[in-house]
């Protein structure tokens, strides 16, 4: 019996819907956790990098060394493909360190450190974009560098880098597909399995494409709403008790 395109789609959804659902779940889990942890890595490392160099010579050298390590991390993980990193880390850890992660856990770790490398640079740009006066005002009321970062600079930075973080999240949703090389059962891996079961490449991957698209467009909308909420309104209506100050001439 020959099926039409739509019949194939409905056949796939009916028989393999739960597979796709599970794959989507794993993709979402890895990309969400990966983005979240990468975001935190970015905040932490970029904040360390933004610290002014101390006057003490030993502390200064130590600080420079830490900055150097962060630079190495960023360059190495940005400079190599995630697919290669996945293979090297997953099999490397098994072979040389005897650590046996489940593929999903390994996937989360790999996406996290990879995203972190990009986010360090994104956060650095975000911190640089905050007016110097904000840090000066924080210091002028006696805040330490870290207090100023936590209460003043980073909250503003986070707002400014939300669009870039959203980008990173979307890229992660799509790029987790490369984790199929270490047999993570994410959406792409599942799609390949379904294709293998029914020998219909085109229809199966159309289903995957639609799912990927729905995921990314939903996340874009959610983050846009979040930005709007943080921004608040432009106008403010004061409580009625406030009188305008009239300058009285002597």
């Amino acid at each position, binding site marked *: 019996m020959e099926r039409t395109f739509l019949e194939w789609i409905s056949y796939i959804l009916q028989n393999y819907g739960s597979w796709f659902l599970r794959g989507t779940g794993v993709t979402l889990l890895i990309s969400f956790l990966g983005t979240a942890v990468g975001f935190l890595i970015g905040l932490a490392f970029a904040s360390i990098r933004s610290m002014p160099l101390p*006057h003490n010579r030993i502390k200064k050298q130590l600080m420079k060394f830490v900055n150097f390590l962060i630079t190495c991390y960023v360059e190495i993980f940005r400079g190599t493909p995630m697919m290669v990193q996945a293979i090297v880390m997953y099999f490397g850890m098994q072979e040389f360190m005897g650590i046996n992660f489940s593929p999903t856990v390994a996937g989360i770790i790999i996406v996290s450190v990879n995203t972190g490398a990009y986010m360090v640079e994104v956060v650095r740009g975000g911190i640089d974009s905050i*007016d110097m*006066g*904000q840090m*000066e*005002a*924080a*210091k*002028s*009321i*006696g*805040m*330490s560098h870290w*207090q100023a970062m936590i*209460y*003043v600079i980073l*909250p*503003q930075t986070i*707002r400014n880098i939300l669009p870039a973080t959203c980008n990173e999240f979307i890229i992660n949703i799509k790029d987790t597909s490369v984790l199929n090389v270490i047999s993570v059962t994410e959406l792409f891996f599942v799609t390949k399995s379904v294709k293998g079961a029914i020998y219909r490449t085109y229809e199966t991957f159309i289903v995957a494409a639609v799912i990927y698209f729905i995921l990314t467009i939903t996340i874009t909308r959610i983050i846009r709403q979040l930005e709007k909420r943080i921004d*608040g*309104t*432009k*106008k*403010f209506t*004061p*409580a*009625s*008790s*406030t*009188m*305008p*100050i009239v*300058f*009285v001439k002597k």
Partner: protein
Amino acid sequence: MSKNIISIRSLKKSFGCNEILKGVNYEINEGDVACIIGPSGSGKSTFLRCINLLERPDSGEIIYEGKNVLAEEYNVNQYRSKVGMVFQQFNLFNNLNVLENCTVGPVKVLKKDPEESKKIAMKFLSQVQMSGFADAKPKQLSGGQKQRVAIARALTMNPKVLLFDEPTSALDPETVGEVLKVMKNLASLGLTMIIVTHEMAFAKDVSNKIAFMDGGVICEEGHPNEILVNPKNERTKNFLFRFIVGES
């Protein structure tokens, strides 16, 4: 004689090979309202920023309550919490509302009780007539309103000295009045203030001493009547020419 709060001795500061401060000596006593005037680029702002260590001086001494704040082991953050600063560009914390701007310092730096800090903050906000804007974000305020909040924020730290870095230069002529009025009130309450300003009439009205700065040194210092009406230094005379003609 009133108690000395800050004495500054031969303060020097360079940016690269550009020497901005060439050995400034200055004394501030309790209750002083001291204005610093002078042409742009004379080092007034840098001097003020050095006092609160936003710029670290290259050499010299800043003695606060008998201790040199430039000593390596000195707790700079604690010193800064006692020497408030009001900026030309207001610099309210954009992520916090008006009330939070005024409580973040007392709560996080001075470790005061949040509820008590709110009460104190509201007291100062109503003093600058901004209590109705407690929930507003800085971007919802006008320049004059921002500056009044910035003054309230500095006051909540209960500072020993308040530094003003051209607080009205970014404001239009109408709102300048609101801010100057608030500052006049503070002066009458006996707060010690150092004000870098181009508002000569204001300086004459509120201050008890004026220093004229040019080329990285204090050229002339004295009572407003001496400096503004009857300056001795040639450079001061030239600078104040228009003001003196306008007055007489």
